[in-house]
């Protein structure tokens, strides 16, 4: 925070989208301008266009094959499960899958950071009656501060005793998205 020494003008910090130059004196007044007028909020949405077989009882990252949009270079086809962070800050992210029909236990959707840390899991219990006929959709979203080089995955887990598919859908299954919200101050 900068403060003008004559009248108390205060220049507060922002989320990294503007910059302040000057000292607040008459010879060198504060001037506030955008850091980069062409700045675009980093965001991405990817999807998978084929079904994916999910093994029993382990967290499996969804492997994506199609970029819907990506203004932050989060995703590359060579690392199809990962969003990689290039700018420090707070991020919102989410995902959605559709499970195959099965009558037992629960389904989980969550987010894994750096290949090992589960940030969140969202459980969706399945009862025998519904599970016999319903192919359920399952969505989750979260926010977290992330640093450059860190990675995020959309992970799923099921414990039916065998493998179970997640299905491809037009826009709402096997989808993963992320958006930069701002610098953490």
């Amino acid at each position, binding site marked *: 925070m900068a403060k*003008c*020494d*004559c*009248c*108390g*003008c*205060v*220049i*507060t910090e*922002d*989320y990294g*989208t*503007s910059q*302040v130059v000057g000292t*607040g*004196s*008459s010879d060198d*007044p*504060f*001037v*506030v*301008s*955008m850091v980069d*007028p062409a*700045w*675009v*909020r980093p*965001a991405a*949405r990817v999807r998978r266009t084929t079904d994916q077989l999910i093994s029993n009882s382990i967290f499996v990252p969804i492997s994506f094959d199609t970029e*819907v*949009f990506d*203004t932050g270079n989060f995703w590359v086809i060579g690392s199809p499960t990962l969003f990689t962070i290039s700018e420090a800050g707070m991020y*919102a992210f*989410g995902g*959605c899958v*559709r499970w195959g029909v099965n009558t037992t236990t629960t389904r989980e959707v969550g987010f894994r950071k750096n290949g090992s840390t589960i940030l969140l899991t969202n459980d*969706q*219990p*399945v*009862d025998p*009656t*519904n*599970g016999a006929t*319903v192919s*359920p*959709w*399952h*969505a989750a*979203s979260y926010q977290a501060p992330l640093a450059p080089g860190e990675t995020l995955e959309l992970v799923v887990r099921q414990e039916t005793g065998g493998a179970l598919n997640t299905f491809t*859908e*037009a*826009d*709402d*299954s096997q*989808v993963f*998205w*992320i*958006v930069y*919200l*701002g610098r953490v101050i």
Partner: protein
Amino acid sequence: MSVCGNCRNNICSCTLESGSSTTVVGIGTANEPFQVRPSTPAFRYVGSAYRTTDLQIILNTDTAIPFEASDPPITGGNMWSASFPTRLTTPVAGLFLVGGYAGQVQIGGGVAQNINLWISKNGVAATPQVKTTIMSQISDHALNANVMTLIRLAANDYIELYIRSNRTQFLVDEYLVGSVAGVMAHPYIFAQWLAA
């Protein structure tokens, strides 16, 4: 550009150039100094709507939830109107964070009851942008669902919050509940513009 009026002929003449990512408040006096705050795009074009009365829905039918009122928008861009109560219509093109919530009371002990809740755009119910399913657990408990996703929308696109329930009985008792304070929240939809 704002100029520090009281100090102009004294010591300093602070100047603040307007930028689309900043907002300047204050007049530059000691009691009311300039303060530069982020007018972050995340806080533009926010729209939301909710309903506070129960709504009877028909079994096995995709139902766009009609809302009854909107939260005041933080800035310009009213997205909801009573003329199109199911819709949030985008004033500008861009990247939007969208989502919603709804819940249904259980019936028949909740046995085999399930609901789907999803967001679709421009009236195409069959192509959700995000969707979730909630199944009963054969217990006397309501079914609550929420969704959120990030999508690109064009100007004048609209989103709607859809629900579908599988119940084939007790339809008279099958409600979206907004008036049961402390038990279930109001059905709610929101859209927040994040970037062009």
